[in-house]
């Protein structure tokens, strides 16, 4: 009876063919459905129909993102909660929004991002059989992350949006950067016992900072960096480590300019674990623990 995890992102791209080639051959996702202006993709170990949707648009950025809920009644429950808060909710029947899509509700966060809660997306299976499976499929292409992990948004009022995610949607705050004026500069929140499923940082409303894909371990980040360099993809950082979340990370850009991350590590957290706080002076180390300086590009470039 809760929100379970990040389900999918819909990303705007001005060149659908180029973006699809990148997401399938360099990142290594699988195409599961295609329409004239949309391509549906999933990671190899995901069972659901799609976790990334590329939508043709004259620009880049995040069109919407969805979280998966546990039970059919959750959509009614959250719709009622949202409407009680004065938030307008749009409802989609199963399959209405797109191929394989589940029943869903859509609404806007205070920061202007379009968020969805989805139930019962079509299950198409991962790339392994359910009887006596090998631990890994052979012949994977590109980085081939097993699954989507989290996303990071920019908005003007981090505190307001964090409170909304906590109070209305039941997210737990795991970490925060607090400015010298006492105001939240960035926050990390979870629903799946991981160090974060979503994070927010001060910037323009409705901005998309990045979407992250999970990889097995630090060694996979090295292999990912090799693949990205080979394919001429712009990397923003070397393989490095976050202070906040303690995760290992590598940032790079898709051909449209949307930032991607591959991520691993972090920690398991209980719902009753107290959040970790970073002070403004330590913000550099909160973001990149090895460098310890605030990278201006990382803070200012978004889509």
């Amino acid at each position, binding site marked *: 009876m809760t929100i379970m995890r990040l389900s999918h992102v819909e990303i705007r791209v001005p060149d659908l063919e180029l973006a699809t080639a990148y997401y399938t051959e360099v990142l290594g996702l699988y195409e599961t459905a295609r329409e004239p202006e949309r391509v549906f993709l999933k990671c190899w170990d995901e069972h659901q129909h799609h976790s990334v949707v590329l939508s043709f648009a004259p620009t880049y950025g995040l069109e919407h993102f969805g979280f998966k809920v546990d039970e059919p009644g959750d959509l009614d429950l959250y719709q009622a909660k949202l409407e009680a808060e004065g938030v307008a909710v749009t409802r989609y029947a199963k399959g209405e929004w797109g191929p394989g899509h589940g029943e869903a509700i859509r609404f806007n966060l205070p920061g202007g991002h379009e968020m969805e809660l989805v139930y019962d997306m079509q299950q198409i299976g991962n790339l392994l059989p359910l009887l006596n499976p090998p631990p890994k499929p052979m012949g994977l292409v590109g980085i081939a992350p097993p699954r989507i992990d989290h996303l990071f948004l920019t908005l003007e009022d981090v505190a307001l949006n964090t409170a909304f995610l906590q109070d209305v949607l039941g997210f737990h705050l795991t970490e925060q950067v607090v400015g010298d004026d006492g105001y939240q500069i960035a926050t990390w929140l979870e629903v799946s016992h991981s160090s974060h499923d979503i994070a927010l940082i001060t910037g323009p409303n409705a901005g998309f900072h990045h979407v992250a894909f999970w990889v097995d371990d630090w060694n996979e980040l090295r292999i990912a960096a090799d693949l990205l360099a080979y394919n001429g993809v712009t990397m923003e950082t070397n393989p490095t480590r976050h202070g906040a979340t303690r995760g290992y990370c590598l940032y790079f850009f898709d051909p449209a300019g949307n930032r991607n991350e591959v991520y691993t590590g972090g920690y398991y957290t209980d719902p009753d674990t*107290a959040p970790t706080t970073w002070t403004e002076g330590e913000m550099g180390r909160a973001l990149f623990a090895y460098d310890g300086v605030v990278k201006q590009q990382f803070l200012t470039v978004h889509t």
Partner: protein
Amino acid sequence: MGVLRLSHVDVQVTDLDLATAYYTEVIGMLEVERDDTSVYLKCWDEVDHHSLRLEYAPRLGFRGMTYKVEREDDLSDLENKITRYGFPVQRISKGESVGQGESIRFATPTGHTMDLVYDVEKVGSALPKVNPPVYVDGLSGIAPPRMDHLLVTAEEVGESAKFFQDVMGFRLTEQLLDGDGHQMAVWMERSHRPHDLAFVRGPNGGLHHFAYWLDDWDHVRRSADILAYNGISVDAGPTRHGITRGNTIYFFDPLGTRNEVFTGGYRPDVDFPTITWTEENLGRAIFYYEGVPNERFMRVHT
């Protein structure tokens, strides 16, 4: 809501000082508290009071397992469900057991003592809550960040699986079926991991092993180095499981209780379709690289 994860394991040891030396110096847990008969230990990244209790007894054995629930009313909810299923449930008040909050205790259908606890005393992890470093310096031994799961033995695995699914709300991620289609072993989860609790055929009330979580495969390699350096008896590994897809080493503490270090696996949703293994694939199901389990792994338990 409901059961969150494994909270702690209680084992009997015949030499409290030797066991404590091993669990603090080779495994690298931290001693939290000690009384005349027991030592309470936790892993460095754990916030709760303890994840392992060593209790002196004239013979080794498994005292019980405790799982943490998310909300206070989960205790009464599960108390009702377990009672309705026909098992007596005992209430334990906050503080009655060292470091523990309000709890319920009952015997499972396979004779294991199980506690469910809410509001465990928090002693904090080894890191500060303001501007923490990413790493704790000076940890001894393997230093796993936390406890992960346990595997217990049961005569009727199918009956246990049914109880844990129907009454306790666990989800079946994987099962091993014999030639007659009966469950020989089951893996079940509550925390979106391949398993929080597993059952394998064997005597009722037995413990096969408990497992610590490690960061990655490289941490598994370093653990093998540390175990070999300390002359610890390794049972199997470093290797990989077919079931759970995790990377692993099995070994014995100096008194004979089996330990595991584990990493990897996958992240199942609540609607994850159960994976089935058939008996003729048992070897690869257990040790994917070897393809055959060793006899000791199949027979030795405490």
